C-alpha cells in the first residue's frame, strides 16, 4: 500500500528533477541583465505597481477562467464513471464516455475559436 | 375554383396596379389594359361557369372567413359562393358591360394624371360587385355592398381637386350610410331570427313558413314583417329610390365611364338584386312588396318629370336611371322578378351606351354639359349621334328594342297582378308606370333632338380636362401638343372608343328581342331564389313548382290579355312620345320656347328637384346641425376640459415618474430592489389576509 505511494512519489520527484537537469545540460546557456531580472509573466517588474497591463493578459486570464471552470464538470463524471462501467454498472459507460467527449469537443471548438482570434499571440 | 377566380382576378389586378404605381410608375400606362384584361378574363370564366351552373346551383367555399364558437352557438361566415342562374345573369352583366366600359375608359382616361388610380378603383369595384352577387351569406354580401360603396365614393371623388366632386362623393357616402344602417340592422335581425346568415338556409326557412301559412297553420311573426323593411332601406339607398335618391344625380361628378359602369349599369342595381335574391323574405311580409312597388312607381314618375326639364346632359340620364330603377322596383314589387331582372339587363346595355355617348359629346366639347348650348352635332359626330339614337330608342321603349320588351313585361305583369288581386293600388301604380313610359320617350328624344338635330351650334366647356381630351383624340400626336387651349371644334371619337359602344348599341337594340324569344331571363329567374313562391298544394305543377313559366294563366283587362294590352299601349305611347318630341324640339322649336316661358316657374321648381334637397336640409340636416352645435358646445365646455384633464394626466404622471429614470445603475438597482420588496410585502399581506 505504502509501497505504491512511495513509487508514485519517486516518479513525480524524478520527473521534475530530471527535467531540470536535462534542460540544464541540453539547453543553450546565456547570461545577461534581462535574464537576471525577476520573472513576472513577461512584465517589467520595476516601476509603479499601478501601471496598466496589456489587455491580452486579461483575455488570457478570462480564457483560463472559463477553461478552468469546465474542469468542474469532469469531477462528478470521473467519480461515477467506474460505477457505470464496472460489473455493477448498466453497461452505459460507452455512451457516457461519448457524451463527455462531446463536452470536450465544445471546449475544443471554443479553444480553436480563441486561437483563430489570436488570443494566444503575443507579438 | 372558377367561381373564386372571378372576383379575385380583378382584385389581383387592382393590387398589381397599385404596386406598379408605387414601384414602377413608368408602367402605369398598362393599368387600363391590365384592368380590362382582368375583367375580360373574369367574363370568360363567367361564361364557363354559366355552362356548369345550368339551371342548378353551385356552392363552393374559398376560405373560412369568420368562425367562432362551437356546437350550436357556432357562427360561420365564409368567403364562399352561392351561384344560381340569377347570379350568373348578374355576373354576365357586371363583367361583360364592365369589360366594355373598361375598354372605352382606356381611351377616355388616357393622359389623365390619375390614370392608374382610376383603373385600380374600377378593378376593385368589379371585385366588390362580383363578391356581392356571389356571396352565400349576408355578411359577405354586406362586405361586397360596402366595397362597392367605397369604390363608388372613391370614383365619384376621383377629381378630388374639384370641390363639387368631393362634395358629391361625401353625399353619396353619407346617404348610402343611412341605407346601410337599415341593411345592417336587417342582417342582425336575420341572424337573430334564423340563427344563420347563410342565404340558402334563411330562404329555406322563409319558404317553409310561407308554405305553413298557405296551409293555414303557422303564422307570420313580427320579425318576419320587419326584416324586409330593413333590408328595403338598404336597397333603396343603394339603388337611389325615394327618399334616398339624391346622391345619384350628384354622383355624375365622377368620370363618365364611372357613371356608366357604377351609377347606371351595375352598382345601383344591387338593391334590385338584393330584393330578388331574398324574395321569399319579402313575400313573408304582406306589406313589404306593395311598399316596394309603390316606392318604385312613384320614384319612376318623380324622376322622369325632373329629367323632362333638366338641361344637364348627364343629369337627364342620371334622373332617367333613377326612373328606370323605379321600374325595376315596381317589377319586383308586383312579383315580376323576371321582368325586373330582364329590365336590369337591358337597362345595363342601353344606359351604359347612353352615358358613354354622352361622355363622348362631353369629351368633344371640353366638358360642356348644358344641352341648351348644343345643337345639330350630327354632322360633327355622326357615329356618336346614331349610337346615342340607338340607346334613346331602347330607353324610350320603341317597339322591338330592348327597353320595349323588358319595360312591357314589368307593366304587363303589374297590370295582371292588379287584375288578379283586384287591387286598386296596383291599377294606380300601373297607371303611373304608363305615364312614365310616355314621359320617358318624350324626354329622351327631347335630349337627342336638341343635341343632334336642328341648327348647328356649340359652346366649348370651361373645364380643361384638356389633358385627356387631347390625348384621347390625337393619341398619335406628340404630348408636346398639350397646351391648355380648348378645342376649336368637336369631332368624332376614335374607334378604340366607339368599338365598345357599337357592341353596346347592338345589345340595346337586339338583347330584348333575343332574350324575349329565348326566354333566357325567365328561365334563369325561375330556377333561382328569386322564383316566386308557388304553393305546392295549390299549384297544378306540384312536382315542378318552377314550371316553364309562372304565367300559364292569363289575366284579362278590358277583355284583352294584360300583356298584349300593355304591349300595344306602350308601343303607341313610345312612338307618340318620340313624335311629339320631334315635333316640339326639332320641327317647331318655338313651341318649346313658348311652353318654357309659360311654365317657367313650374319648370324651375322641377329643375330644382321640387326642393327635395331643401326639404331634406330643413327636415334632417338642419336639426342635426343644431344638435351638433349643441353637442359641440357641451363638448367644448365640459367634455373637453375633462378630456384635457385626462389627456394631461398621463403626461403629468409621466413627468412625475421620469426622474426615477436618471440613468444611474445604482438607482435603477435600488428601484428594482425596492419594487421587489414592496411586491413581496403585498404577497405577504395577501397571504395573511
Amino acid at each position, binding site marked *: 500500500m505504502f509501497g505504491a505511494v512511495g513509487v508514485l512519489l519517486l516518479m513525480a520527484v524524478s520527473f521534475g528533477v530530471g527535467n531540470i537537469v536535462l534542460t540544464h545540460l541540453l539547453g543553450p546557456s546565456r547570461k545577461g541583465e534581462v535574464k537576471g531580472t525577476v520573472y513576472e509573466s513577461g512584465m517589467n517588474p520595476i516601476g509603479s505597481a499601478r501601471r496598466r497591463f496589456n*489587455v491580452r493578459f*486579461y483575455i488570457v*486570464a*478570462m480564457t483560463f*477562467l*472559463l477553461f*478552468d*471552470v*469546465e474542469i*468542474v*464538470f469532469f469531477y*462528478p463524471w470521473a467519480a461515477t464513471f467506474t460505477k457505470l462501467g464496472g460489473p455493477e454498472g448498466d453497461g452505459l459507460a460507452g455512451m457516457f464516455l461519448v457524451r463527455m467527449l462531446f463536452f470536450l469537443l465544445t471546449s475544443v471548438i471554443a479553444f480553436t475559436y480563441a486561437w483563430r482570434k489570436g488570443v494566444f499571440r503575443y507579438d | 375554383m372558377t367561381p373564386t377566380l372571378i372576383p379575385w382576378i380583378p382584385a389581383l389586378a387592382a393590387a398589381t396596379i397599385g404596386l406598379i404605381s408605387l414601384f414602377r410608375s413608368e408602367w402605369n400606362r398598362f393599368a387600363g389594359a391590365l384592368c380590362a384584361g382582368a375583367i375580360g378574363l373574369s367574363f370568360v370564366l363567367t361564361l364557363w361557369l354559366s355552362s356548369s351552373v345550368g339551371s342548378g346551383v353551385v356552392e363552393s367555399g374559398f376560405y373560412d372567413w369568420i368562425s367562432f364558437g362551437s356546437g350550436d352557438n357556432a357562427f360561420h361566415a365564409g368567403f364562399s359562393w352561392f351561384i344560381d342562374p340569377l347570379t350568373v345573369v348578374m355576373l354576365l352583366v357586371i363583367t361583360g358591360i364592365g369589360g366594355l366600359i373598361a375598354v372605352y375608359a382606356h381611351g377616355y382616361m388616357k393622359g389623365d394624371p390619375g390614370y392608374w388610380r382610376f383603373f385600380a378603383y374600377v378593378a376593385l369595384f368589379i371585385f366588390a360587385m362580383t363578391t356581392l352577387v356571389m356571396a352565400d351569406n349576408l355578411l359577405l354580401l354586406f362586405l361586397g355592398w360596402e366595397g362597392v360603396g367605397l369604390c363608388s365614393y372613391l370614383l365619384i371623388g376621383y377629381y378630388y381637386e374639384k370641390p363639387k366632386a368631393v362634395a358629391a362623393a361625401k353625399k353619396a357616402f353619407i346617404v348610402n350610410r343611412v341605407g346601410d344602417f337599415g341593411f345592417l340592422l336587417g342582417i342582425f335581425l336575420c341572424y337573430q331570427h334564423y340563427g344563420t346568415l347563410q342565404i340558402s338556409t334563411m330562404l329555406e326557412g322563409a319558404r317553409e313558413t310561407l308554405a305553413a301559412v298557405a296551409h293555414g297553420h303557422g303564422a307570420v311573426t313580427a320579425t318576419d314583417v320587419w326584416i324586409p323593411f330593413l333590408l328595403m332601406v338598404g336597397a333603396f339607398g343603394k339603388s337611389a329610390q325615394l327618399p334616398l335618391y339624391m346622391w345619384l344625380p350628384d354622383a355624375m361628378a365622377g368620370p363618365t365611364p364611372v357613371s356608366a359602369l357604377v351609377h347606371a349599369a351595375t352598382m345601383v342595381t344591387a338593391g334590385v338584386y338584393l330584393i330578388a335574391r331574398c324574395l321569399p323574405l319579402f313575400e313573408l311580409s304582406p306589406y313589404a312588396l306593395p311598399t316596394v312597388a309603390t316606392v318604385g312607381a312613384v320614384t319612376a314618375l318623380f324622376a322622369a318629370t325632373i329629367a323632362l326639364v333638366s338641361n344637364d346632359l348627364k343629369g337627364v340620364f342620371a334622373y332617367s336611371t333613377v326612373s328606370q330603377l323605379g321600374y325595376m322596383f315596381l317589377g319586383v314589387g308586383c312579383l315580376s322578378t323576371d321582368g325586373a331582372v330582364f329590365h336590369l339587363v337591358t337597362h345595363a346595355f342601353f344606359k351604359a351606351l347612353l352615358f358613354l355617348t354622352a361622355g363622348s359629346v362631353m369629351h368633344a366639347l371640353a366638358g360642356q354639359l348644358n344641352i341648351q348650348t348644343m345643337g345639330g352635332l350630327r354632322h360633327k359626330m355622326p357615329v356618336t349621334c346614331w349610337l346615342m339614337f340607338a340607346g334613346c330608342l331602347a330607353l324610350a321603349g320603341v317597339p322591338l328594342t330592348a327597353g320595349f320588351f323588358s319595360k312591357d313585361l314589368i307593366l304587363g305583369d303589374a297590370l295582371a297582378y292588379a287584375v288578379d288581386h283586384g287591387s286598386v293600388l296596383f291599377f294606380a301604380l300601373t297607371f303611373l308606370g304608363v305615364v312614365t313610359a310616355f314621359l320617358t320617350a318624350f324626354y329622351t328624344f327631347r335630349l337627342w333632338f336638341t343635341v343632334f338635330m336642328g341648327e348647328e351650334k356649340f359652346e366649348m366647356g370651361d373645364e380643361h380636362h384638356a389633358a385627356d381630351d387631347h390625348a384621347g383624340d390625337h393619341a398619335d400626336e406628340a404630348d408636346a401638343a398639350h397646351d391648355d387651349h380648348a378645342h376649336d371644334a368637336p369631332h368624332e371619337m376614335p374607334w378604340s372608343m366607339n368599338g365598345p359602344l357599337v357592341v353596346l348599341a347592338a345589345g340595346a337594340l337586339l338583347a330584348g328581342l333575343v332574350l324575349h324569344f329565348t326566354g333566357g331571363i325567365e328561365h334563369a329567374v325561375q330556377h333561382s331564389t328569386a322564383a316566386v313562391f308557388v304553393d305546392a298544394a295549390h299549384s297544378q305543377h306540384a312536382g315542378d313548382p318552377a314550371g316553364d313559366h309562372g304565367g300559364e294563366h292569363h289575366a284579362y283587362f278590358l277583355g284583352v290579355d294584360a300583356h298584349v294590352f300593355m304591349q300595344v299601349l306602350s308601343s303607341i305611347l313610345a312612338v307618340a312620345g318620340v313624335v311629339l318630341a320631334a315635333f316640339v324640339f326639332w320641327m317647331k322649336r318655338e313651341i318649346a320656347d313658348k311652353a318654357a316661358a309659360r311654365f317657367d316657374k313650374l319648370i324651375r321648381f322641377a329643375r330644382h328637384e321640387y326642393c327635395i334637397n331643401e326639404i331634406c336640409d330643413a327636415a334632417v340636416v338642419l336639426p342635426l346641425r343644431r344638435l351638433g352645435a349643441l353637442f359641440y358646445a357641451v363638448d367644448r365646455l365640459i367634455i373637453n376640459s375633462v378630456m384635457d384633464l385626462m389627456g394631461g394626466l398621463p403626461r403629468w404622471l409621466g413627468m412625475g415618474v*421620469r426622474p426615477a*429614470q*436618471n*440613468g*444611474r*445603475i*445604482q438607482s435603477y*438597482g*435600488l428601484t428594482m*430592489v425596492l419594487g421587489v420588496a414592496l411586491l413581496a410585502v403585498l404577497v405577504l399581506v395577501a397571504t395573511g389576509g
Partner: protein
Amino acid sequence: MLLALSSPMLSHYLLTGAVLFVLGLVGFISRRNMIQMFLCTEMMFQGVVVTLVAFSAFHGNVTGQTFVIFVLTIAAAEAALALGLVVLLFRHRRTLDASAWSALNG
C-alpha cells in the same frame, strides 16, 4: 442559544445564504466601483449557492449540488463578460465609477 450555535442546523445555512445574498444586494446599490458592483452580484450568486447546498443536504439528494456546479459555471461566464465590459468602459472614460455612465436617461 449556545446549543443552536454549536450544532448548525438547516436554518443557519439558509440564514448565511440569505445574508450573503442581501449583502450582495446592498453592496450593489451602495458601491460605485464597477468591479465591486460585479463582485457583489457574485456574492448574491454565492448566497444562492450556499442555500442550494444546504437544501441539498436537508433533502438528502444531490440535485442541489448539481445545480451549484451549473451556477458556478454561469457565474464564471458572467465574470468573464463583466471583466471584458469593464475593461472596455475603462478604456473610454479612464474611470471605474459606474455613475460616470448615465448619459442615457429619462
